[in-house]
């Protein structure tokens, strides 16, 4: 990952690039074969780039380069009947000419050749295909899409697309995203899976995640969803051990009831955050009754999401903000303790706590006494705990310990204004050490320019959710609590809940 790309890669493995090893699947055999075959999308033993090209600006070139240079450990084939070699690799005329089996076909040929490419891949043993090619139902070519759908379903071929941007699995170095690496960053391996109907929106979020240091377990741009749709992906991800949270951008679902069923199964164990676009009210205008005009498509989507335990984001920023928050350990309650080196930011944060319907913790007497001995005379000990502008990393550490020990505080929000003269970068060590102890959820808020953003990225990279404003942090925390509440509902009758690790009598969740 850390090595720079090589100008002349070859198919014979480049010893200097670390290669991934095929990883074992965690998908149970009880799932339909079509869904199990998604393993070949995310963990292919071999891939064939069909439509591999010498032209650097062509999709078939970018994808082949990703696999050759990105550290992918499986066998790579390049297929192009018109070119003898691409990127120093001998090409095959067709996928079925390959010596061994082809596990996953990456299809980037023009629309009229896709049928043959898929049939040929199936005969070469493919279990999955990612069809980048567009020109299907999105432009009215329903017949073409139905044809590839039939080819795939007859063979249980897990087909992603068509008209999609590709798939990422950073841990297995699988990268069929056709945006060049020098233009769009790739996130490191993490625990968030992101599925996007739109390739464009998907690419933006992935790029942001890479920049912010947020890790991803999987990324799928699923395009027209001719075969594999959002419901299949949710069912797969529910069992995927590397995925702890799922984030989704969609404009609509293929099949409402099956989506709700898959989402419900997922959200019993993993959070699901959805940004649903296309919420115009046009559909409702034609309704003949009050109910018809009040219960438009957008409202029904929101209801279906809520009933499935999914959290809805209203903007791209929220989608990104909410996805990070689930790295937190379980909370023992909704009471927020705020630590800050800037008074005004603390007040803003306290306002946001109330605006989001959460509770500002009332510090215990012991905490107040400890604070009084620790802080200079010119400060007051209360929540928000203002350790003022001359606080250094050591004062942050002592104050943080007080909040973490206080039984009246459930979640700690640390506001760090990196702009002060007294504070240096070592406060990052303090925060990381405290967060990694996982005794309570810790969220960091830092508002500022380049210097601040740099520190925020480092914290994000350590899996500490950080936010640029108190309001965005509190909104994300309220969604985190909402989901904690939802999930533990399934354990309401149990004496001990494995999720929140709490005895029944100690639980705060709404009954």
């Amino acid at each position, binding site marked *: 990952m850390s090595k720079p790309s090589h100008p002349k890669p070859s198919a014979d493995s480049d010893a200097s690039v670390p290669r991934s090893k095929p990883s074992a699947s965690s998908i149970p055999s009880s799932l339909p074969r079509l869904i199990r075959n998604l393993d070949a999308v995310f963990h292919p033993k071999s891939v064939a780039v069909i439509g591999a090209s010498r032209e650097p600006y062509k999709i078939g070139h970018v994808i082949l380069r990703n696999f050759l240079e990105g550290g992918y450990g499986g066998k790579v084939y390049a297929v192009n009947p018109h070119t003898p070699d691409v990127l120093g690799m001998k090409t095959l005329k067709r996928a079925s000419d390959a010596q061994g089996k082809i596990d996953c076909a990456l299809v980037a040929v023009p629309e009229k050749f896709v049928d043959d490419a898929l049939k040929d891949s199936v005969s070469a043993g493919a279990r999955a295909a990612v069809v980048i090619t567009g020109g299907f139902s999105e432009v009215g070519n329903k017949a073409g899409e139905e044809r590839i759908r039939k080819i795939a379903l007859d063979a249980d071929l897990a087909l992603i697309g068509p008209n999609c941007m590709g798939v990422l699995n950073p841990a297995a170095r699988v990268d069929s995203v056709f945006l060049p690496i020098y233009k769009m960053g790739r996130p490191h391996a993490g625990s968030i899976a992101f599925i996007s109907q739109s390739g464009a929106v998907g690419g933006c979020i992935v790029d942001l995640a890479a920049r912010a240091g947020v890790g991803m377990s999987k990324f799928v741009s699923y395009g027209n969803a001719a075969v594999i749709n959002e419901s299949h992906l949710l069912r797969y991800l529910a069992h995927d051990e590397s995925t702890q949270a799922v984030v989704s951008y969609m404009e609509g679902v293929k099949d409402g009831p099956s989506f709700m069923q898959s989402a419900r199964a997922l959200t019993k164990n993993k959070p699901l955050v959805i940004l649903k676009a296309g919420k115009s009210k046009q559909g409702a205008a034609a309704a*003949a009754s*009050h109910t018809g005009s*009040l219960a438009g498509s957008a409202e029904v989507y929101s209801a279906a999401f809520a009933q499935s335990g999914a959290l809805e984001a209203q903007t791209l920023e929220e989608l990104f903000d909410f996805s990070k928050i689930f790295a937190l350990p379980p909370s023992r309650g909704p009471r927020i303790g705020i630590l800050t080196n800037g008074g005004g930011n603390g007040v803003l944060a306290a306002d946001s706590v109330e605006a989001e319907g959460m509770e500002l913790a009332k510090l215990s007497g012991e905490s107040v006494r400890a604070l009084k001995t620790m802080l200079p005379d010119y400060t007051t000990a209360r929540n928000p705990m203002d350790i003022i502008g001359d606080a250094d990393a050591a004062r942050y550490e002592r104050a943080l310990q007080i909040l973490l020990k206080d039984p009246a505080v459930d979640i700690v929000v640390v506001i760090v204004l990196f702009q002060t003269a007294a504070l240096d970068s070592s406060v990052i060590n303090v925060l990381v050490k405290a967060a990694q102890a996982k005794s309570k959820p810790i969220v960091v808020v830092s508002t500022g320019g380049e210097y601040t953003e740099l520190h925020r990225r480092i914290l994000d990279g350590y899996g500490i959710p950080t936010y640029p404003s108190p309001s965005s942090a509190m909104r994300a925390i309220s969604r985190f609590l909402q989901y904690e509440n939802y999930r533990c509902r399934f354990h309401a009758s149990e004496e001990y809940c494995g999720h929140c690790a709490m005895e029944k009598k100690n639980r705060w969740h709404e009954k």
Partner: protein
Amino acid sequence: MVSAKNTARRSRNKNHRPQTGYCAGAGGHAPDGRVRENGARTMDFDLLKRYGIPILPHAIAKDIGSARKAAAKIGFPLALKLISSRFLHKTDSGALALNVGNEHYLRTEFERLMRMAKGDKQASILVQAYRPGRFELIVGGRMDPQFGPVVLLGTGGIYTEVLRDISLRVCPLDEREARAMIRSLKSYPILAGARGRKPVDEAALSRILMRVSRLMENERPAELDLNPVLVRDDGLWAADVRVLR
């Protein structure tokens, strides 16, 4: 259509003199008491009865004799609503009389409404108990093209669409979801008895919601409106229904 009626109901008449107002799109009725309005829209009280949804006592009368019989059974005060195909497509031209307090006004209002429908041999009058509620809700349903039948609960009455204080669920609905729907309304504090009022019977309301859910799943009408559903000390009552097939 409901709005005009409710406006009339709000200006309460103390001396039992009936108020007149406009009732939208009344039309011919089938012999089973299902009243057909514009095309596929019906005022199907029997459908509600079959699903055990409480509706204000009512009857359909074609002449003053049966209207008086109905009045004796239901009791005063009454609301009269004209049902005539002559007003089929004119949503503002139907007519009704509210708070009809005695036999005298029953006769004069009945005759006035029938005169309006002159020439329509199918014309009849819906005779309904007039029982204002202390709060008005809307309960409805719709077939969503993506998710199938959905149930809606909201603040009813004339400002339903302005306030958009609604709660929505995809069917089927269990009691937990039904209760959550009630509690998620912005007006819930009012329902729960703000300012010393008697709280709404949440169990009865969630029963109605669950029954509407079952109705939506079995009958699958395109749209269904129970508006208003009256919150009263003697229970919850649907006062009007529209079913769109």
